[in-house]
């Protein structure tokens, strides 16, 4: 800013910059995150303990990793409701490969990730080639994956895992928990994928205008298969990290993962209609959910409130979204839109 600007011009240029900033979809949620954080930081001495802050990051890491995959799927105009089941199956296969097949932990982990890739690929083929509706289809394949999980484990847990299997969930890289590093690495790579690569552009295209994408002559099928495969891979990665966090392999691992994952994406500003969404937004969404959950603990409120808070946050996020897209305004809410 130059010194000879009039105050009015300075105000105007500042306003322009604020407008530009607010034009980014993430700005609103980021602001909400900052306000929420500052309030909690001020009112709660427990909240601001470094240990508590790392705990929040550790708690949101699995959700975030899996939510990056979900964000990609939603941006493409679809949904993947089988993520939790893939996470569970991949985790159990990993544990069984070590326990029953006697494989080294790193090999077992690669096997588990492979299972996730396979499940995701299957989803992709069913969605793309067979044109099945992704919501019902992934609900069904999710049931299948969960069934396979319980079938091969007979519902039995594997207690006591070696460090090699739990390192992703419990290990440290220097002073920083490995899973926090992993979360940021995944977020960064997925951000690059979505915003800087041809594949990412194609994802945004088919989510934004499927018909036009087909007219351009791009291979929509292949892109869809790629999207679901990646979602399967990240679900498996999340499941294996969860294995480490829990320390034991429980067949029901990954159940209950889906809702916070979808929530993070939606609160982070991903449009349910496809075409719009960002990894940064999803990370912020996950952080808001994480702080909300943590607040209940540090303020010593009933922890069962968390489901209520989480559900309400989603409803609020959906409402904000409707407002932003102009689908909703006060006249409609008050019933005066006739």
């Amino acid at each position, binding site marked *: 800013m130059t010194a000879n600007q009039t105050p009015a011009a300075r105000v105007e240029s500042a306003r322009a910059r604020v407008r530009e900033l607010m034009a980014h979809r993430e700005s609103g949620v980021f602001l909400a995150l900052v306000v929420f954080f500052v309030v909690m930081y001020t009112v709660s001495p427990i909240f601001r303990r470094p240990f508590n802050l790392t705990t929040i990051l550790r708690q949101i890491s699995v959700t975030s990793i899996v939510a990056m995959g979900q964000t990609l799927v939603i941006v493409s105009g679809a949904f993947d409701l089988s993520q939790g089941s893939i996470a569970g199956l991949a985790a159990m296969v990993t544990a069984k490969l070590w326990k029953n097949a006697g494989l080294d932990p790193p090999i077992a982990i690669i096997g588990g990730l492979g299972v996730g890739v396979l499940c995701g690929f299957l989803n992709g083929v069913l969605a793309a080639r067979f044109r099945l509706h992704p919501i019902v289809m992934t609900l069904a394949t999710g049931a299948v994956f969960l069934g396979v999980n319980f079938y091969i484990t007979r519902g039995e847990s594997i207690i006591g895992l070696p460090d090699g299997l739990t390192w992703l969930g419990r290990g440290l890289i220097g002073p920083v928990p490995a899973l926090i590093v992993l979360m940021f690495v995944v977020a960064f790579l997925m951000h690059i994928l979505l915003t*800087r690569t041809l*594949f990412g552009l194609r994802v945004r295209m088919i989510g934004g205008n499927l018909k036009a994408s087909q007219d351009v002559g791009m291979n929509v099928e292949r892109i869809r298969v790629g999207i679901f495969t990646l979602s399967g891979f990240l679900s498996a990665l999340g499941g294996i990290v969860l294995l480490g966090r829990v320390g034991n392999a429980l067949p029901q691992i990954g159940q209950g993962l889906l809702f916070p994952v979808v929530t993070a994406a939606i609160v982070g500003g991903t449009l349910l209609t496809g075409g719009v969404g960002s990894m940064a937004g999803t990370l912020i969404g996950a952080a808001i959910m994480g702080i909300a959950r943590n607040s209940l603990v540090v303020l010593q409120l009933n922890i069962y409130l968390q489901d209520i808070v989480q559900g309400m946050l989603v409803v609020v996020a959906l409402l904000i979204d409707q407002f932003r897209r102009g689908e909703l305004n006060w006249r409609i809410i008050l019933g005066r839109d006739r």
Partner: protein
Amino acid sequence: MSLEHAVEMRGISKRFGNVQALNGVDLELRRGELLGLVGDNAAGKSTLMKTLYGSVIPDAGEIFVEGQKAALRNPRDAQALGLAMIYQDLAVFNNLDVAANVFTGREYTRRVLGITFLDKKRMYNESEALLSRLRINISSPKLLVERMSGGQRQMVAVARAIGFDATILIMDEPTAALGVKEANTLLDLMAELRDQGISIILITHRITDVLSIGDRVMVLKGGERQGILNVEDSTLEDVEYLIVRGRSDGSG
């Protein structure tokens, strides 16, 4: 085949069920002219243009593009011959920026470690150059299309077509949904493109648009060609008469 013509269509017929949509229609588009295509609803304007663009296969007739007989089985064949059609329902991506829309389907990329990265800088630079060459008033190629007006979206679609090296542009009712000011800006752009050597066919209900910027106007009625008038020596009444009454001489 005359090389004076960018497009020549001969005896194009098309029947849908028991409706004869087109009946032996001839059309000549001169190189670098702006030809208006007018007629009442169901006169066959859009069907005729879809046969030229390969999205409707005619039952009979021949099409020549730049003097060469063209076998048009789909829009991609037409695009390969330098044709571009801009429909009323625009095939733009509202969720993407201008540059991404301009370069849809032929993005500049760089391969690094087997991954195809977008060369965004080059696409921004080239779309900016393209916009300014076409004198399209869009302040930045980074603007999201969803924030734009209907007229600006049309212009993005035009820029995309021209960016694809189209030399023959078909526009189907581009001004139908626009306000007066925006429609005029778009018409100016079409005149500008024509002056830069692009051959344009403009389907429209607004005859005055054609009379103000067009070179010739062709009238269709009931799937048959009623005539081609020179804009210079025609009045609105002449055109309207043809649209409503058809050929006065009654000959085939």
